[in-house]
């Protein structure tokens, strides 16, 4: 997993609340059995017209937002389906982080497992970033070490993040490996609790 320390990049505003994972990656693209290649289908129904051409009015298609790697969005980002493909699509497109007032639980978990950072700021701070990121080429820095988001125009905000999540992101940790360090605990637990279905195999 790619570690996340500090990232500076272009920010793009997606001024919508409750962006669900069906929007982030529509179902017709979930049939692939790989983890890669989802970026071109990110926000497909918004990014493309029904005949598959780029929808010029969608924010990600604006020339000034090309190459953006920081997404600014409304509250409850990533609600709905558990599809991890949503995080894969955001990452594959080139996003490293989403800044929003709040995130849905499963999306938040999926992000952590992929080295993808969710930054929760206040509604007011997000509204300010939404406004600033309208500018052509607006650059923002997300610093996980310092738990800070700032630009070169005197915007600065701190964010909170679970210590362990931060630790995993900073070090790009594979948490299956961490769990397997508890082999003896797991085995002891299993010795106490037999599966109720074992005899039916």
């Amino acid at each position, binding site marked *: 997993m790619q570690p996340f320390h500090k990232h500076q990049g272009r920010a793009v505003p997606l001024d919508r609340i409750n962006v669900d994972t069906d929007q982030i990656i529509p179902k017709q693209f979930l049939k692939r059995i790989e983890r890669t290649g989802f970026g071109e289908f990110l926000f497909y*129904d918004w990014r493309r017209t029904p005949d598959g051409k780029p929808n010029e009015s969608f924010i990600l298609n604006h020339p000034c937002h090309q190459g953006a790697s920081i997404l600014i969005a409304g509250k409850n980002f990533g609600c709905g389906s558990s599809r991890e493909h949503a995080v894969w699509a955001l990452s594959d497109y080139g996003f490293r982080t989403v800044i929003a007032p709040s995130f849905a*639980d499963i999306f938040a978990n999926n992000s952590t497992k992929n080295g993808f950072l969710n930054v929760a700021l206040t509604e007011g701070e997000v509204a300010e970033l939404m406004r600033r990121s309208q500018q052509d080429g607006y650059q923002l820095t997300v610093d996980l070490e310092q738990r800070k988001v700032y630009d070169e125009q005197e915007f600065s905000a701190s964010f909170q993040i679970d210590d*362990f999540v931060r630790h995993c992101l900073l070090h790009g940790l594979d948490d299956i490996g961490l769990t397997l360090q508890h082999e003896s605990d797991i085995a002891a637990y299993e010795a106490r609790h037999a599966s109720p279905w074992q005899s039916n195999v």
Partner: protein
Amino acid sequence: MRDYAGPLPAELDQRRAGNLIGRPRLAPMPARSWYTIHGLSRFWCGTTSTFIRPDTENPMTSKRTLFEKIWDAHVVSEPTGRSPLIYIDLHLVHEVTSPQAFDGLRAAGRSVRQPSRTVATVDHNVPTEPRGTPILDPIAAKQIQALEKNCKEFAIRFFDMDSPEQGIVHVIGPELGFTQPGLTIVCGDSHTSTHGAFGSLAFGIGTSEVEHVLATQCLPQRKPKTMNIVVHGRLPEGVTGKDLALGVIGQIGTDGATGHVIEYSGEVVRGLSMEGRMTLCNMSIEAGARAAMVAPDEATFAYVKGRRFAPQGEAWDKALTYWKTLVSDPGAHFDKVLTIAAGTLAPFVTWGTNPGMVVQVTGRVPDMNGGDRKATEQALQYMGLEPGTRIEDIPIDRVFIGSCTNSRLEDLRAAARVAKGYHVSPNVRAMVVPGSQAIKHAAEKEGLHRVFQEAGFEWRESGCSMCLGMNPDILQPGERCASTSNRNFEGRQGRGGRTHLVSPMMAAAAAIAGHFTDIRNWKFQ
């Protein structure tokens, strides 16, 4: 003989004592303004008399909620500075969210730790045409084959497309008796919350976590907060578990329960059938809940008893003794409490593009002044609706009766009762997709398929179908659908499709009337 998986009461007591010594409970959250009326009413167009309060009773006592009892019984380890490691009793697997997890195992040279605690089936991609019809989409076919191959390689029990046990994973888990009170259950699917209806802790996970559970049978989990939703009174005639679920989401919003496990209680919840409880828990993810549960009772035990994978004989007696301890202790602390008077609920219809945008069937499409103006505007534009339109005046093109929310025998019976003696409107195409092969056969035994077919409904094979349109069952752009499923997101049932969520009875009535109509005035034949 089958041994029961859960701890015995004596052991529970020991754990509880250990818990008290080793892990003092945190002080209660201060009263918060989280539930202001403003926040509550974002998309709410109902009239329910409801109040909500932070619960501050007895936070320091040993009284535990149902959730806490199950959580405590599944803590494998509590590493310093990390989330507790929780043991997973049952892992349900389907074709869409698992292939990358199996690839991950192979890449790391890991195996499946507990194949006997893992159960797989295909549901999302499965066509609902008669079985044996070839799958025309080669990518879908490949995904289905991948699951079959992975299950063979890792010795996982797999119910393939042609097996009589096939069905939506959240339908067959309970149906086959895998789902039992007190278990921890996960699946790479957000609607795993369904299984909480049995008093289990069941939640959806992503593919990386699927891989984690396959490899370790555990998950590191931050302990969620708790929320108690108490439903008092009596559900009025024509108002179902689905309407209750929509009513709750309408009030607290699609993120109203984020970070929380909901426990539903009160006489209305007690009075719901297991099917109704499953519908209620199923939809709780639409309020953002981590999981939802109902304490097991006689209805639960009666449902589980005798099912193929349920404990039997002595194991049943042991299990039952434990299951009866799975209730929240009187006075146990919840982080939030919401009380609902059921008498004020009505049949609901969603008007917008998330399940919180909901209104009573007798209501109107809201204007732009309430709630979040921009979101309302975006939703109305997508839905092609004008503010102020009477819900009952909205014509529909399609009807979908199915999904893990509402495809069980009770749902089909309710819809058939409405359809009996009528015919689907000439402008409407309506389909019924049973949740499993077992439900399909049971319904056919009762003659429900004939009622539907005579009324002009399509009677199809089991699967997720048009709930999310991964198979060929999709809406065409602009088509408007009355659907018993769980999500009315943009494009969910097909690009440009417009979904209105309703109960099975309301869907059947809309199919016949050609527009939404109040089931409370229906003339049953």
